[in-house]
């Protein structure tokens, strides 16, 4: 079962809906250890993405579509998360350029590229209390599942489970990157907002991708 550009667009729209729903929660998480704008930033960006998708003729090229998403995020989000999420999508775009279908292997490569990109850009490693703590385990779980013979759908599920665990793991961490790092020890005890939104992204993948619209995906 493979995903088409239309499936990928559905994923982006689902992510927008999820962000809009959790906007205030994300901002509250950011208020505790940052500057209380992560929900606003992501919401502004994903609304722009959907508006852009609405205005752009639907094409077959998954890479082109992901590039639109990435470029739009870069140019509308600002803050730390704009370039970081933008990079995730732009790197996935490069990895999928010209492709009209993606299977498990294709997604694994795209996710790896996206995660590598975010780390190259933001220099965060596992344990720094950032979105990396959700994205790295998610991509790893995805690849592991695919290499163990799972379907793309199953791999997305595995990735969402791993991302969720990654988010929870950020709670006790002391931030070493981003605005939360100014708090030092005081950042411990709070869940990272960027990791939380990243989990939502993977969660939407588990609901929308893997060759079919799944139901009963892992809940937050």
């Amino acid at each position: 079962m493979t995903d088409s550009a239309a499936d990928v667009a559905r994923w982006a729209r689902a992510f927008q809906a999820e962000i809009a729903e959790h906007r205030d929660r994300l901002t509250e998480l950011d208020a505790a250890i940052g500057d209380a704008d992560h929900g606003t930033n992501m919401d502004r960006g994903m609304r722009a993405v959907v508006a852009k998708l609405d205005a752009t003729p639907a094409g077959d090229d998954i890479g082109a579509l992901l590039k639109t998403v990435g470029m739009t995020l870069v140019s509308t989000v600002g803050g730390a998360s704009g370039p970081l999420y933008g990079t995730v999508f732009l790197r996935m775009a490069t990895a999928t350029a010209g492709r009209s279908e993606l299977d498990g292997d294709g997604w694994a490569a795209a996710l790896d590229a996206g995660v590598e990109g975010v780390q190259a850009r933001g220099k965060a490693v596992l344990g720094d209390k950032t979105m990396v703590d959700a994205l790295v385990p998610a991509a790893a779980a995805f690849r592991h599942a695919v290499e163990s013979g799972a379907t793309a759908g199953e791999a997305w599920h595995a990735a969402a489970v791993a991302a969720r665990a990654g988010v929870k793991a950020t709670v006790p961490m002391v931030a070493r990157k981003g605005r939360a790092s100014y708090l030092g020890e005081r950042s411990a005890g709070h869940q990272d907002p960027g990791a939380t939104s990243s989990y939502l992204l993977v969660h939407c993948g588990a609901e929308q991708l893997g060759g079919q619209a799944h139901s009963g995906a892992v809940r937050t």
Partner: protein
Amino acid sequence: MKKLINAPEDVVREELEGLALAHAGMVRVSLDPYMVVRADAPVLGKVALVSGGGSGHEPMHGGFVGAGMLDAACPGEVFTSPTPDQILAATKAVDGGAGVLHIVKNYTGDILNFEMAAELAREEGIEVEAVVVADDVAVRDSLYTAGRRGVGATVLAEKLCGAAAAEGRPLKEVADVCRHVNDFARSMGMALTSCVTPSAGRPTFDLGEDEMEIGIGIHGEPGRERMKVAPADDIVALLAGPVVEDLPFRAGDSVLAFVNGLGGTPLIELYIVYRELHRFLAGRGILVGRNLVGSYITSLEMAGCSITLLKLDDELARLWDAPVVTPGLRWGA
């Protein structure tokens, strides 16, 4: 929340429109994407200076665009870094063929967005150097943090680099001035009250009626310590002490002393702070060669102040005295 604003989402646009109407002779303002550009940009053959960051710190940066200072500023939403395409557009608008210096405050968002913009600009054949300003001694600089925040030294760097660029110096030298300022400037701030971001509509942090926050960031980031409010002279010691010790500034040094208001503090109080700062430094044999007193890098309506010291040499003093004609800083012309 009591503010002279209309809808929170219109604050930045309307402020920029006001700036454009008030200073048409000095700056041009673009609303899509947001940027403030010198009225006569690009200045051919001159190194161009671009800075930017979240809004809410006025007059920084838009108010520092003009002859002898910035060629362009990129304002983000309130307390949110601008995006790469704003920065790219500004970079292209002001490039006069001699390259562009990006003056970036050390916040993850600012750095990432300026980095992406610089990459894009370089792809388009524009020479770009970026210097990151990180002068806030309230933050421990270590491998385990995002490093020191960029605060008051940014204003000084923009003025001094602007003067160097106006003299026709090449990009590398102008960037060197910026690095030098960053190396020899230190700052620390304090808040008597919290700022209120228009979208949140309530104070970013809660301070008791008898409390102050020492080491506050310009976005209301937590400081080093929360204490009972104290006399101005004691506050000066709490801020200037760590600043002086960090570089360190020593007896015999000449400095530029900058007392900055955070937006809600009136000038009468800043002069009281400046008086004590001058005495504090004199007591340590440190001479004030130049000074700046006023609200130049603010945090919305936060009450409080910050102190920045820059070690001066003749060259910096000369660059400081050079003419500057911007909405927010002006002399010599």
